[in-house]
């Protein structure tokens, strides 16, 4: 690791002030991505702003048909929360598919979303549920938040404080894991809330998470895997690497979308 100065602010305002003063500073949440990246010297921020001591940044709350999750809430907390399990079991399950048990005890939803790893699970949940990302400055719709691989609309001194999820009527997430890293080679999140249908894909696109409008249109007619039969997406813009070609990933998007819809309507494929 390159040397850095360590700050422990106690409020979001202090953290934002430190970010304003130190343009190259990085926020440290659970650290499950940032610290390994720093150890490899792929990142070398001169200033680290640790979020641990800031109170009120974690917690889960249901209010009517929305679920609010604090940015510092860990994957394990989301996975095991009775509130999430009851209100949005798809989110609890998704959180339990991230990393491994020890990583889930540290990694946070805010950190995952801010990082926007193209293979991460939470961006698919945010886009697939139409979440609102709340920062110290504003509220941002998931549809506008994710702008590309490892990039978001977050401004330099902007800090995610919580994420608000509207609760779906039906939803499921299907993840096809890379057998070695266990990251999503492709993950497809589908949801239905009233007339709003969303299909969000992670892992596949070379530009990060994206929605599949053609699938959404087809599912509007009937929310059934049959509506997607024979449908594919173009391989253009898909990732291609040693783990899978662009064509393979495009194929998986169709397969996983059909499986996700089947799971969402309670008829999972055998």
């Amino acid at each position, binding site marked *: 690791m390159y040397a850095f100065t360590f700050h422990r602010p106690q409020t979001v305002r202090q953290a934002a002030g430190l970010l304003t003063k130190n343009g190259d500073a990085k926020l440290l949440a659970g650290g499950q991505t940032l610290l390994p990246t720093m150890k490899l010297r792929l990142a070398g921020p001169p200033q680290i702003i640790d979020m641990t001591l800031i109170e009120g940044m974690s917690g889960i709350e249901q209010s009517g048909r929305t679920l609010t999750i604090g940015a510092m809430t860990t994957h394990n907390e989301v996975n095991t929360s009775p509130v999430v399990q009851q209100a949005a079991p798809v989110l609890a399950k998704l959180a339990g598919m991230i990393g491994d048990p*020890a990583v889930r005890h540290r990694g946070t939803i805010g950190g995952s979303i801010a990082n926007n790893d193209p293979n991460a699970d939470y961006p698919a949940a945010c886009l697939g549920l139409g979440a609102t990302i709340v920062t110290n400055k504003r509220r941002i719709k998931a549809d506008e938040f994710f702008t590309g691989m490892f990039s978001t609309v977050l401004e330099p001194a902007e800090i995610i404080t919580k994420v608000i999820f509207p609760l779906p009527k039906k939803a499921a997430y299907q993840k096809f894991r890379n057998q070695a890293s266990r990251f999503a080679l492709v993950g497809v999140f589908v949801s239905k809330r009233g007339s709003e249908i969303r299909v969000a894909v992670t892992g596949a696109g070379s530009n990060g998470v994206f929605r599949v409008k053609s699938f959404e249109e087809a599912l509007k007619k009937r929310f059934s895997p049959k509506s997607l039969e024979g449908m594919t997406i173009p391989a253009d813009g898909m990732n291609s690497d040693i783990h899978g070609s662009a064509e393979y990933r495009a194929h998986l998007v169709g397969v996983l979308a059909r499986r996700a819809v089947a799971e969402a309507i309670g008829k999972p494929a055998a």
Partner: protein
Amino acid sequence: MAASDTAPVSMTVNGKPISANVDPRTLLVQLLRENLRLTGTHVGCDTSQCGACVVHVNGKAIKSCTVLALQLEGADVLTIEGLAPADGPLHPMQEAFRENHGLQCGYCTPGMIMTAVDMVRRKGNELDDRTIREELEGNICRCTGYHNIVKAIAAGARAMRGSGATSKAAE
């Protein structure tokens, strides 16, 4: 504070309060091994994949190679050395690994045992093979001696029932 300066940190390790002045880059596993000489916690991969460095922080299993010591001000840390009293009987999970020969070279064992004890805390005393194997996703045994490790964890989990042993047995 210049980037090379040290910073103070205090926490509880195996029931004892400790304080240290550390370079901000110091990982928890370095503090444990190099400052406190608690070398039971191992560094296998140093990339948060292998789980040889698993310890408990505030009662939860974490990878000590992927957390800065400075992030743990005031935390309660339990390492393999603190699982059972030095002069007393082994923790039931340790005893189960011995009894079932849940190791070959032994390098991954401290992390396996700390993960196993955390698994019991979260999943209970009756663990089927599938659960154990899923839960061991973050612990790698390069001798590939998983079969006996899984057997040991199932037996250890049952033995922990009613033994009064928890993840804080040494306190």
